[in-house]
């Protein structure tokens, strides 16, 4: 599948516009902490860029282009009345920043990383962090993202407004933490980015995936914090998954499991990038969960590309992961790998041990794995029951249909 030229022009224009927008929001709100004011100042200019650049081409200096429009369109009516109503200090400050930024000779400094640390600050509700980053760093609207989080655009909008008010009122600093603080402050930033991805990975019919956007955010972190192995590990992990996206659905939208995917559809460039990043991240040994999860993805890819069975490697990687970041999901995935090695009874015992965990009760992969292993062991009734629960947990028609077929195979 090749993208048409207008589509490519559109996607390039959008990329540049969003990069520039995020840089400007981070810069303009840096001192006042008033994200809403910065977004407000740039809103018209950003929309104009998204509309015009695909046709006219991207300007030589996108930041300057946006700033010029923003000043021309907003500054006047801004200074006049609206501002006076809502306490104008911050807006004046942002307006001053707008003028100052336009006069910068060396270009706008990239403070998006500091902005991301503010978005994932411990004082911000964990559920609001991911949408906040998607909006302030990439310029996505509440309407763009609300379906993915299964809330209404209005509710999403209110949550974002509240989170921004919190950043402003509590004077949450726009700062990249120092070395010693980084080990506790970086994980929530990475977790928020990964949440955008896993939300995008979850199949919900009709809700646009946020995979590209999550990868984009991770790229920003990697480029501005190149010495951090976990940021690279996360980016690699998402690229491995993203490279396979088009092969996860068959022609009729049906779900295709990993080992039956058509590897010719995999994006080799993305896989290569992922391998390179994983290699760099692991230069000093694997130190974090994302690097290990990326290594597991690397092993799956190698096997599917004809490297032979490597399930024992996968199991030992899950053992390492279980030590540094234990979770029922790790135990579950390890059990699936065990079953693929032929140790089905041991796998089922591990899965049985998870059955009391409330986090597994509505976790589709748990029921699907349980069903498959029971089916392989000839436990037909248990397999059918587990498939039935899995079908009831689906969000997409493709997955539902796949599981229905698996179940009917046992019954026939």
């Amino acid at each position, binding site marked *: 599948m090749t993208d048409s030229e207008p589509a490519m022009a559109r996607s390039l224009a959008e990329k540049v516009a969003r990069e520039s927008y995020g840089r400007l929001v981070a810069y303009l709100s840096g001192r006042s902490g008033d994200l809403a004011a910065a977004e407000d100042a740039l809103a018209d200019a950003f929309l104009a860029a998204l509309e015009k650049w695909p046709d006219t081409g991207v300007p030589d200096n996108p930041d300057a282009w946006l700033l010029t429009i923003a000043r021309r369109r907003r500054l006047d009516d801004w200074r006049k009345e609206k501002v006076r109503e809502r306490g104008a200090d911050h807006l004046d400050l942002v307006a001053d920043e707008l003028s100052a930024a336009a006069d910068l000779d060396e270009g706008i400094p990239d403070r998006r990383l500091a902005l991301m640390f503010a978005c994932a600050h411990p004082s911000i509700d964990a559920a609001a962090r991911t949408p906040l980053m998607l909006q302030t760093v990439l310029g996505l609207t509440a309407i763009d993202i609300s379906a993915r*989080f*299964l809330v209404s655009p209005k509710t999403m909008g209110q949550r974002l407004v509240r989170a921004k008010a919190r950043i402003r009122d509590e004077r949450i600093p726009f700062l990249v933490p120092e070395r010693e603080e980084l080990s506790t402050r970086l994980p929530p930033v990475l977790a928020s980015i990964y949440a955008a991805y896993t939300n995008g990975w979850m199949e*919900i*019919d009709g809700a646009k995936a946020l995979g590209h956007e999550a990868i984009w955010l991770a790229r920003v972190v990697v480029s501005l914090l190149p010495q951090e192995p976990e940021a690279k590990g996360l980016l690699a992990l998402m690229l491995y998954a993203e490279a396979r996206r088009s092969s996860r659905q068959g022609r009729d939208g049906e779900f295709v499991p990993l080992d039956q995917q058509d590897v010719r559809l995999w994006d080799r460039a993305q896989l290569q990038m992922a391998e390179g990043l994983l290699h760099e991240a692991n230069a000093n040994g694997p130190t974090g969960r994302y690097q290990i999860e990326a290594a597991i993805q690397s092993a799956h890819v190698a096997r599917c590309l004809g490297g032979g069975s490597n399930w024992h490697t996968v199991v030992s990687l899950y053992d390492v992961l279980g030590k540094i970041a234990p979770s029922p999901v790790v135990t579950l995935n390890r059990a699936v790998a065990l079953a693929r090695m032929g140790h089905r009874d041991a796998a089922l015992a591990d899965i049985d041990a998870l059955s009391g965990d409330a986090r597994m009760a509505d976790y589709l992969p748990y029921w699907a794995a349980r069903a498959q292993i029971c089916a392989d062991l000839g436990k037909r009734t248990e397999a059918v029951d587990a498939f039935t629960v899995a*079908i*009831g947990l689906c*969000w997409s028609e493709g997955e539902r249909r796949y599981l229905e077929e698996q179940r009917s195979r046992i019954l026939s």
Partner: protein
Amino acid sequence: MRYMLMLHANEADGQAVAPQDMARFMGQMYAYQQALEKAAVFISTDALVSSSEASIVRVKGGEVSVLDGPYADAREQLGGYFIIDVVNIDEANKWAARCPAATWGSVEVRRIRDRSEYAG
């Protein structure tokens, strides 16, 4: 908190569904209920008969009127409900999005007023 998931759908469309498709839909609804029960959020469910058997009763200004259903101008009719117990509206929405009925109709998510909210 208890939420009612109200399943609305166009009854005429429902009657036009082929029997084998209908059997599949029913199977999906059964699976959905199993999932709700396993997750320990299920309270109750019922399906309603066609709104053509319904009556609409009003007692207003001393006048009683009884009309046959359905409401002529409603595009979708209430066809059933689930009552679930989850922590908040986000969780309720997640379950609503999983409801197979959302693929052919719409699922309205309403919080059920708690007894404590009547006090004072």
